[in-house]
């Protein structure tokens, strides 16, 4: 990027500056012995052309919409279209959540995102003993197609795209969405959205798992195969770093483990015989936006560059769309505090800014009360408005990748990339991510990082305002509570559905799913048939648990 003589001059001047600086520091030293990111990555006080002297602009930075996409995946970025404002929502039953969906859309939200309650996430119905105490608390209760029909009342599925955070039963919820759209008169060719469908990070971090890794992967590939042909606008998987980070990983670990998971999915789909350029354009990603501003921006830029190279060089993808890493971002839940909760609005705003400067395609901003419960309407409105202020007042959307060329940001992008590659190579040497997970490798790396961070917090080496510095009392805030009658209504509805549906047909459909699970035939058409008959999520998952066995937590700590 720089000429020899320019660099030489910079080096000389830096030497002089360094001399002056050390003289000054001998009298007034720096505030801290080490300056580090939230991930404990050491950061220098000053970056100069020297730090990026090897950077090849055309090869490594380039132009937005052009390989390796360091500067973004679209040529015009937010000047053409803003990111999708997608608030993760689900509370109580389908009725309450439908109301929240309409509220958010009426307030300017541009895409939907469903949070399911724990029983749905784990493949249990509301009437299961495993659901005791959990109904409607961490998200919306969905047992059958009936619940999805209520959830989407008055929402046109040809106009809104929907993201569903769902993993072991992802294929079942996708099937329900397809049938529901069909009932609205919208064909599966037209619907758009995403299922998370990323089981590898469940074993690593989020821990809503059901079946062992290998059968889990098989069902994922079934959805990729089916959607590639039948649901062309659907993102078949959202390869997620968010939960990895929230479990305590560093930014580099989040980056590396997520991309290593992505590599494992591409491998698995290609093993099935799929053409990489047929399915890769529909793989999407999901990252955290933590509180360390520049580290996050560098992470997103590095992620795009690594993935583009992986797809082009390793998997020989030919279509530019296959090389693009498109991603959703959620601000960091783990950075928020129960203490002095109004400070969370500020944290979320900074994190949202980092996501936007990093070129995200869609964004969820956390609400100030989410360390306590699902957000109230007031709290979620502030969170949504935070995005709208960012998009329409601050002017940060005017210029594409405005931090490119910063000595610091480019150097940090390079550093994140190098460190991520070290992990990816290590995982390759273990035989890929599935083997690494079976050995507990990423799980232990994250547990280690999480423990180190907590120790640093306890020793006041890391500061969280209101927790270990500037601690003051704060008045309690009003939080959302689940009303007990919602649970009763949900159980009654499930009972009613089971009584009035054609139980002979349900049994037949479950038999077909069992057969396909055993003989390797693509499961998705059978799941669609089953949910159309109001087969419950648990009824289908129970078949899988019987055929494949359950995964139990090895409990690494």
């Amino acid at each position, binding site marked *: 990027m720089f000429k020899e003589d320019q660099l030489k001059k910079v080096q000389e001047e830096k030497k002089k500056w360094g001399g002056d600086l050390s003289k000054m520091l001998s009298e007034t030293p720096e505030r801290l012995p080490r300056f580090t990111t939230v991930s404990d990555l050491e950061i220098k006080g000053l970056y100069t052309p020297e730090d990026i002297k090897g950077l090849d602009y055309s090869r490594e930075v380039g132009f937005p919409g052009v390989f390796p996409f360091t500067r973004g995946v679209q040529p015009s970025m937010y000047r053409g279209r803003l990111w999708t404002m997608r608030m993760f929502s689900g509370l109580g039953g389908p009725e309450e959540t439908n109301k929240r969906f309409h509220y958010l859309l009426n307030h300017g939200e541009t895409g939907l995102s469903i949070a399911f309650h*724990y*029983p749905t*996430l*784990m493949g*249990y119905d509301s009437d299961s*003993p*495993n*659901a*005791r*105490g*959990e109904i409607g*608390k*961490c998200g919306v209760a969905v047992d059958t197609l009936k619940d999805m029909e209520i959830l989407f009342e008055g929402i046109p599925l040809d106009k809104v795209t929907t993201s569903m955070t769902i993993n072991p039963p992802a294929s079942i919820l996708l099937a329900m969405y397809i049938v529901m759209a069909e009932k609205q008169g919208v064909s599966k060719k037209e619907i758009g959205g995403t299922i998370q469908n990323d089981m590898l990070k*469940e074993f690593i971090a*989020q*821990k*809503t798992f059901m079946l062992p890794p290998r059968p889990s992967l098989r069902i994922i590939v079934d959805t990729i195969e089916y959607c590639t042909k039948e649901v062309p606008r659907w993102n078949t998987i959202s390869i997620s770093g968010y939960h990895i980070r*929230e*479990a*305590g990983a560093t930014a580099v670990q989040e980056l590396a483990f997520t991309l290593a998971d992505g590599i494992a999915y591409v491998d698995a789909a290609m093993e099935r015989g799929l053409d990489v350029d047929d399915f890769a354009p529909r793989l999407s990603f999901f990252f955290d936006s933590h509180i360390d501003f520049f580290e996050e921006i560098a992470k997103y830029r590095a992620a795009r560059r690594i993935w583009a190279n992986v797809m082009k060089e390793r998997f020989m993808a030919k279509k530019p769309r296959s090389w693009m890493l498109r991603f959703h971002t959620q601000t960091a839940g*783990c950075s928020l*505090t*129960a*203490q002095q909760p109004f400070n969370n609005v500020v944290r979320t705003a900074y994190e949202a800014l980092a996501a936007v400067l990093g070129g995200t395609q869609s964004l969820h901003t956390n609400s100030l009360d989410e*360390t*306590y*419960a699902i957000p109230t309407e007031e709290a979620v409105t502030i969170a949504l408005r935070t995005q709208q202020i960012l998009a329409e007042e601050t002017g940060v959307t005017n210029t594409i990748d405005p931090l490119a060329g910063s000595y610091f940001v480019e150097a940090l992008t390079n550093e994140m990339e190098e460190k991520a590659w070290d992990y990816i190579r290590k995982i390759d040497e273990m035989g890929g991510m599935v083997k690494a997970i079976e050995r507990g490798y990423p799980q232990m790396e994250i*547990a280690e990082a*999480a*423990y180190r961070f*907590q*120790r640093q*917090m*306890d020793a006041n080496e890391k500061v969280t305002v209101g*927790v270990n510095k500037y601690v003051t009392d704060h008045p*309690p805030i009003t*939080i959302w509570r*689940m009303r007990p009658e919602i649970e009763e209504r949900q159980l009654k509805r499930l009972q009613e559905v089971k009584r009035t549906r054609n139980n002979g047909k349900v049994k037949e459909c479950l038999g077909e799913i069992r057969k396909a699970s055993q003989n390797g035939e693509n499961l998705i058409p059978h799941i669609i048939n089953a949910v159309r008959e109001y087969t419950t999520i648990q009824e289908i998952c129970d078949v899988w648990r019987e055929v494949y066995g359950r995964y*139990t*937590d*090895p*409990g*690494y*700590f």
Partner: protein
Amino acid sequence: MERKIRILIAKPGLDGHDRGAKIIARGFRDAGFEVIYTGLHQTPEQIVAAAIQEDVDGIGLSILSGAHDYIFPQVIQLLQGKGASDIVVFGGGIIPEEDILSLKGSGVKALFVPGTTIEEAVKWVRENIKPRK
């Protein structure tokens, strides 16, 4: 020589948030306690069976899903049923202030909410849990 304090760290319910449980398990181990970690997705029945089988002095329950109002009292009731109510039950996670009082009323000895340091939890265990005979 007095034997070490034995603690069962347990993750009840469907909640998968195990960052806190694992940190506290490690912190207790580093403090010299014997720690058994159940892993995720344990029913109250499984937790009580493990506590009795492992002959622990205390059970630390971690829950962040909001199901604490059902699960904590259930564990205490089951312990009573097995004649093991001398096992001290404490917990941590996302517990709204208004629930803390009623949970303590049902027999939970302490609840550690966000912002607790490892040292504070260790100190509480040393002061409140003794190795059972």
